């Protein structure tokens, strides 16, 4: 990307001492995986930690999983681009998660049913074919969703450590990280995940608060506000304003995705609820986690805002890279802004702790997601097909094999995907392939006696419409036309958030109509394949 970029990266405070902190911290994760392996006896302990997680450990592990490096990166990108208007996403997460905690909407009923996965619920409520299709849709959306994790994680490491993105050291570091994750996840399952998430929560929450205080001390809240107001105007404050990049449909989409989906439909979050010791613990966990869910959007957005202000007012070398005066000059990807900014303002020692915590966050997201998707394929696609012949030992073996296979796939996908979506928008769309259908099935299945298995099946399939929200797909089918020279959008029929909302509405309509037109026949109750 040029000598100027390499020169800018080299001005980080990251030192050998910080590398030592990172290595020691990460080694602990592997040791934990080896230590807890002895407790894994069956799928309940491997996937659900024996359903023995208390409230506060549940809050810590939920936050540890959901406050990943990717979360930090995409939210800082939003803050960098949109200023304080991006805070609306945090507000949506707080309000909706708290309401879910108060009411127990979706999550408590799922916990009462004692299922291990959402597709298992599909079979209990509907039928086996719904479970299998649900499992396929979930893993399709989920694996696509995490396809850019490795790429985005590498950008953080490049930005904060100054490690050259062109050297062989970077791919080696990323591969080592992935291998570490695979080792302790394969060995210890959910117990490893819970313990490493807890440690990560402690280190990351401390680090995030201290880093935020340093940002405030260095730059001043008033100055930050004033600079954003001056450079971005009202669109830097009001998410509904013209030019903010959001608008009413986007804000609604955020209440649905950052709010409801993130806490009550996304499998990794729901997996925590299913592992809690009681429904009361679930409600407490969600009420308290609403603050963490908000913070995971708020603080990184704030860092992105600080990065923007820093670049515009204090770092002319970076301003030339991110906002070159020459309109034909190559612009550095704004995902690098926040990590480069942190590399400049954090002192040695603290920068190592933050980096270690962020890398641990990166790993904890991977371990939870890998465990989730692989267990869904094992429990909800393979097991229902194999029936009673599928022993516990084979289930655990297949889950472990799939963890490795999916890990290799995301290595590959991070290299080939070419799209210009913001990372959060990419994740919303790919996730929507799963959660638009899941929303209808969960709400309808839990709260409406008239819901039928055929309606559920059709609703799941209609969730595939969400893929039209992806940038490359939009260009392919003509929903978006872009000037190939400037990259400016010439025409866009529907934005990704509008397609997401449309898909939600479509799945609801299809589910309701399908249930009325093809109701379930009265059936004898059969036990679901566990």
């Amino acid at each position: 990307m040029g000598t100027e970029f390499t020169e800018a990266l080299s001005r980080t405070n990251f030192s050998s001492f910080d590398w030592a902190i990172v290595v020691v911290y990460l080694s602990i994760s592997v040791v934990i995986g080896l230590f807890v392996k002895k407790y894994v006896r069956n799928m309940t302990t491997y996937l659900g930690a024996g359903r023995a997680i208390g409230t506060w450990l549940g809050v810590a592990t939920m936050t540890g999983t959901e406050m990943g490096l990717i979360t930090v990166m995409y939210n800082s990108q939003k803050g960098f681009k949109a200023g304080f208007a991006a805070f609306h996403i945090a507000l949506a997460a707080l309000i909706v998660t708290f309401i879910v905690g108060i009411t127990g909407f979706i999550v408590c009923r799922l916990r009462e049913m004692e299922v291990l996965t959402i597709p298992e619920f599909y079979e209990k409520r509907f039928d086996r074919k719904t479970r299998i299709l649900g499992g396929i849709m979930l893993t399709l959306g989920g694996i696509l969703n995490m396809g850019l994790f490795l790429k985005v994680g590498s950008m953080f490491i490049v930005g904060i450590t100054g490690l050259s993105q062109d050297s062989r050291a970077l791919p080696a570091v990323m591969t080592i990280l992935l291998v570490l994750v695979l080792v302790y996840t394969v060995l210890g399952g959910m117990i490893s995940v819970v313990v490493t998430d807890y440690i990560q929560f402690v280190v990351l929450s401390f680090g995030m608060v201290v880093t935020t205080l340093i940002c405030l001390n260095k730059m001043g809240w008033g100055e930050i506000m004033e600079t954003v107001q001056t450079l971005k105007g009202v669109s830097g404050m009001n998410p509904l304003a013209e030019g903010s990049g959001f608008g009413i449909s986007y804000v609604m989409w955020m209440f649905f995705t950052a709010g409801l989906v993130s806490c009550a439909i996304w499998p990794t979050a729901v997996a925590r609820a299913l592992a809690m010791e009681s429904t009361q613990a679930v409600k407490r966990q969600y009420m308290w986690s609403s603050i963490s869910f908000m913070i995971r959007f708020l603080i990184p957005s704030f860092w992105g805002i600080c990065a923007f202000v820093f670049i515009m007012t204090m770092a002319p070398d970076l301003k030339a890279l991110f906002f070159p005066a020459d309109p034909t000059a190559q612009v550095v990807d704004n995902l690098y802004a926040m990590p480069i900014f942190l590399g400049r303002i954090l002192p040695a020692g603290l920068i190592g702790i933050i980096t270690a915590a962020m890398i641990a966050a990166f790993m904890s997201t991977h371990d939870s997601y890998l465990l989730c998707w692989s267990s869904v394929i094992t429990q909800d696609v393979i097991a229902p097909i194999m029936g009673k012949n599928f022993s516990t030992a084979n289930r655990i073996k297949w889950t472990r094999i799939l963890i490795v296979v999916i890990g290799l796939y995301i290595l590959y996908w991070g290299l080939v995907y070419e799209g210009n979506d913001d990372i959060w928008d990419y994740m919303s769309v790919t996730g929507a392939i799963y959660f638009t259908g899941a929303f209808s099935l969960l709400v309808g299945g839990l709260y409406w006696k008239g819901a039928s298995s055929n309606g559920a099946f059709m609703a799941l399939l209609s969730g595939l419409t969400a893929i039209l929200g992806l940038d490359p797909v939009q260009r392919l089918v003509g929903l978006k036309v872009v000037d190939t020279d400037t990259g400016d959008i010439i025409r866009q029929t529907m934005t990704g958030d509008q397609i997401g909302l449309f898909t939600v509405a479509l799945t609801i309509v299809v589910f309701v109509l399908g249930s009325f037109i093809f109701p379930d026949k009265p059936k004898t109750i059969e036990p679901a394949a566990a």
Partner: protein
Amino acid sequence: MWQTLWTVLFFVSITIFAGMSVWVSIAGYHDLKRLFKRLNEDQSEDGE
């Protein structure tokens, strides 16, 4: 209005989060001890 909203949201949230982090870290540690105690008990029962 937006400036006030975001200022209040930010400072109230970070204060609560800081306090909550300390509490969750301590209480979570006790939950972790209980988890391992239960896992050890279950393991002993299986061994009998």
